[in-house]
């Protein structure tokens, strides 16, 4: 039972001051085992804050990040699942399923987490699942101003993943979930 927090596109301090207080009150240290962040934090203080929630933090570079040394993409294995992380501004057309599927095949992962569009989506295709956690602060994007703050918490339990979607709609936190199973176990190939 591993809890993985996926979030991104906070754009602090340029487009938003901070996470919504209702989100902040829920995110307490000690509950989450991993954090994966799609990028565009943008400053180091946000990284420090996330580090207090969980020491295992993975970040990929978004185009407005002030820290230049984040990688463009990242892959990690948690339990039976391989997760891939990328900001998404590199994949054009932005938010397009086919292009993201290409990236997923390239990275060879089961779950690909990307951002940039500031809209929560969860797609499924033959290769796996693509999740976009949206913007955790509700910052405006290059495409639209109408953004609801959202983030994603994944509960990885064996071959099953339950994806909890937290959205702030009209000042209230709404939680939904998505279930999916993997059919075969990951074979750990020697590198």
């Amino acid at each position: 039972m591993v809890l993985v927090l996926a979030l991104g596109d906070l754009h602090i301090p340029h487009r938003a001051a901070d996470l919504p207080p209702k989100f902040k009150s829920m995110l307490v240290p000690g509950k989450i085992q991993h954090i994966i962040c799609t990028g565009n934090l943008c400053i180091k203080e946000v990284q420090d804050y996330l580090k207090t929630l969980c020491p295992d933090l993975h970040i990929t570079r978004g185009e407005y990040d002030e820290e230049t040394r984040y990688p463009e993409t990242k892959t990690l294995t948690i339990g039976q699942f391989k997760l891939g992380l990328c900001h998404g501004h590199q994949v054009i057309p932005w938010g397009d399923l086919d292009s993201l599927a290409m990236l997923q095949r390239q990275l060879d992962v089961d779950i690909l987490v990307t951002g940039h569009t500031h809209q929560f989506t969860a797609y499924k295709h033959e290769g796996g699942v693509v999740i976009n956690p949206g913007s955790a602060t509700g910052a405006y994007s290059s495409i639209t101003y109408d953004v609801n703050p959202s983030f994603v918490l994944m509960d990885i339990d064996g071959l099953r993943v339950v994806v909890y979607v937290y959205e702030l709609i009209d000042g209230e936190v709404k939680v939904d979930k998505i279930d999916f199973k993997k059919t075969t176990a990951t074979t750990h190939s020697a590198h």
Partner: protein
Amino acid sequence: MVRKRVPDWLNSSLWYTTPADDRLHRYSSPSPTTASAADSEPNHQPPTPAPPSPPPVAAASKPPSTPNPPKSETRDPVNKNSNNNNGGNDQNGGSSGASPDDISRQAQLLSELSKKVINMWELRRIASQGIPDGAGIRSTVWKLLLGYLPPERAQWSSELAKKRSQYRHFKEELLMNPSEVTRRLEKSVACDNDESKSESRGLLSRSQITHGEHPLSLGKSSVWNQFFQDSEIIEQIDRDVMRTHPDMHFFSGDSQLAKSNQDAMRNILIVFAKLNPGIRYVQGMNEILAPLFYVFKNDPDAEMAAAAEADTFFCFVELLSGFRDHFCQQLDNSNVGIRSTISRLSQLLKEHDEELWRHLEVTTKVNPQFYAFRWITLLLTQEFNFADSLHIWDTLLSDPEGPLETLLRVCCAMLILIRRRLLAGDFTSNLKLLQHYPSTNISHLLYVANKLRIHKP
């Protein structure tokens, strides 16, 4: 003011044994201790001669003026009864040849246990003299004494089956992690949404969460929230279980056996903590659990040993029920809490040995809380070595009024046995002595404790 003099029998040199000898003699060479002459048995065999028998015990074979003590306490903790066909498991590969007293007690116990309906009064009487190690019957006797097994033999199998399945239920319910819980909740709420509806691509459908259950929930009734709150207690339990008896292979080390035993103890304590939200887990409960689990797990009957975890759980609950109030911090100052029990001990000491009491509490100002706290809350498991504490527990558990009364008497006896050293010492040396109680002959200790019951001044 009339000073109550210490009764002569207490001051006699009989009660001061040299500590080292007994232990060595017991564990090394075959040393059946000579049975005391005063014996309730009608046909008492002549004591088997044994060169290295500890001197005071030999001297004690003719106790001076006191009437024949009804319970003679010579005991050989770890011997294999070669005389007895039922020579059961023997943990320490000890000596051959038991004291006739032991054999007779063992025979009595076995005969009692084989009856259709066990006479509990009789069982308690025999058990309070000590249960011989050789025949592996301690496990069964303790279960009877703690009321886990009913006195009617015929009901044993059904009772055991019932209790064991109950424990299994507890474990399933309480040790499930929240992911599984939510899965079960969903199954009960909605019929399984068809996994087979796998379109090869497209938007994944979002579904509602059941009962507002999500991992970051801060609601009091949320499964997840409770899980995270419990995780602190579980960590505490884990730490304590790992620290239990680090010198014993049964409890500690890298072996498969130790690991599985630790797991079992952890499960028991977690289930107990979850079922008792008022008291949860308090440090020290692991020490009370350890002897119970050890005895039950080492039951020669394989089936009983396999179910040791479930049996230990219920016996642990039963044993702790008398002492719960000692572990509850809020009750510390009430008249059921630990402070009041300690003051009862103090009172008992004052009744039996006023001189010592005065010296300890008034002159040297050794507050009984400094030493008696551990004695009482942990039922003397930390003061003596493991085998000795098993023997003390034999006597404690067989008291029909409950272990507390006997416990206080044993504590009082512990103080009286070292009275000379205490009277000669000041605060520091007395405290040191009491917190590291010197090793002593357990038989004597229990004998003196028993005498305190009879000779109430």
